[in-house]
């Protein structure tokens, strides 16, 4: 606890507790997911992947929604508060990570259940699209400039994404509606879960939500600290400049006067 007393990390008492609870949740999930829950009658053991895949997707969507809301909360009030911008950025980064993992793990699951790594169905295609969109968002955040410039650019981009994502999703749904693929499972790949399996899935969602909270708090604090450092760095640089322009010695002052 010595770290928190001096504030030398992004941790606080609350996040330590959150972290411990999350770890317990992870252990719980692994126990139930891999061992205690039964195999599915249709999918067999591959349903165990679903206990990670579905919560992972849920977390990514949650993260992107938070980014959108935080962006709006930055942009629309008269007084812009950079805290919202940092939350938006942190959440988007987490969202990209989990969306990426969702796709990779999903491909493994797909290989087991459908026999293919990829299907051009609406859900997968829109998911891939979402991933690329937010990778672009993160790239825009790194364009440089003041935090306020970054915040405004990113916020506008995030809100444009809110506009375009449903449009793309709808387009893809319409498009894939032309191609009805037969599949062993129900067409959208959902599985009927009940009892212990449903419980495991819900535990996964709860655990991943806690994980998200822990990650986003730490990441936002880091962004806050980094912005502060940039400000301090800028102030120091200006101070240097100012000092260089002030004559220090009598000779310099004399040279100025004559």
């Amino acid at each position: 606890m010595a770290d928190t007393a001096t504030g030398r990390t992004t941790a606080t008492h609350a996040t330590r507790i959150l972290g411990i609870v999350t770890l317990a949740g992870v252990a719980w999930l692994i126990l139930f997911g891999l061992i205690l829950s039964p195999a599915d009658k249709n999918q067999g053991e591959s349903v165990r992947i679903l206990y990670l895949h579905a919560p992972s997707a849920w977390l990514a969507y949650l993260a992107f929604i938070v980014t959108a809301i935080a962006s709006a909360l930055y942009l629309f009030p008269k007084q812009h508060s950079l805290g919202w911008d940092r939350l938006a950025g942190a959440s988007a980064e987490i969202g990209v990570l989990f969306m990426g993992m969702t796709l990779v793990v999903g491909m493994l699951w797909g290989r087991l259940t459908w026999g293919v790594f990829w299907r051009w169905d609406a859900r997968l295609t829109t998911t891939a699209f979402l991933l690329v969109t937010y990778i672009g968002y993160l790239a825009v955040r790194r364009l440089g400039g003041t935090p306020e410039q970054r915040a405004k650019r990113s916020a506008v981009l995030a809100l444009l994404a809110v506009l375009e994502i449903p449009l793309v999703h709808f387009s893809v749904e319409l498009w894939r509606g032309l191609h009805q693929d037969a599949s062993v499972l129900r067409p959208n790949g959902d599985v009927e879960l009940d009892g212990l399996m449903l419980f495991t899935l819900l535990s996964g969602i709860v655990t991943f939500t806690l994980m998200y909270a822990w990650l986003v708090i730490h990441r936002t604090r880091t962004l806050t600290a980094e912005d502060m450092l940039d400000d301090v760095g800028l102030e120091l640089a200006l101070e240097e400049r100012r000092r260089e322009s002030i004559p220090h010695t009598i000779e310099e002052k004399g040279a100025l006067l004559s």
Partner: protein
Amino acid sequence: MKAWWGTTRLIAKRELLVEWRSRIALNQVFPFAGIVMVMFGFAIDDTRLMERIAPGLIVLATMFALLILVQRSFAVESEDGALDALRTAGVSSSALFWGKSIAMAVQLAALEALLVVLAIFLYGSTIRPSGVVLLIATWLAASWGLATVGTLYGGLAAGARGRETLLPLLLLPVVAPVLIGATRAVEAALGARGSVADGWPWMGLVAVFAVVFCAGGTLAFGPLIDE
């Protein structure tokens, strides 16, 4: 309202005049798109298949050319800080957005018409008489939709140092609805796949896209270029 429209027309005229004087779109971008169409032929090398997929190739070549046209549209501005000068002079961002979009749409429309003609010669495409109206409607909607989206994201990414590489990454995913919708609509109009009646909903999709980004762009363009 009259003043706004006057400003918009002025800006559109200016854009087209700059292009006419330099002929860059005409001499460079159009040939680029043409070469892309030829290269598709090399890569795919199957006459019957090419006629089938010609609409998709036309739309793809348009998308690639769009990237270059947008870069160009904003490179001209940043060379002399013209955009900032216009803003400081009190030109409204919406007039700027509409003016640039109109000019872009004109160039895109000319490009797309050229590509359809090329497809007829290179790929053996034919235009169904019953599909002409659909083709023209799609042509107009796609040109306007791509122009507004391009101008919007161009304002964000193009023109400034180190940002140009960001434009394709940002723009191409966003135009996916136009890629999907315009291709299906043109397929129907050219008789490559489906009936003309099948094609109209897809044109509708492109039109919705154009309306959404026209509105969104009008609002968002100002904040994006005011830095």
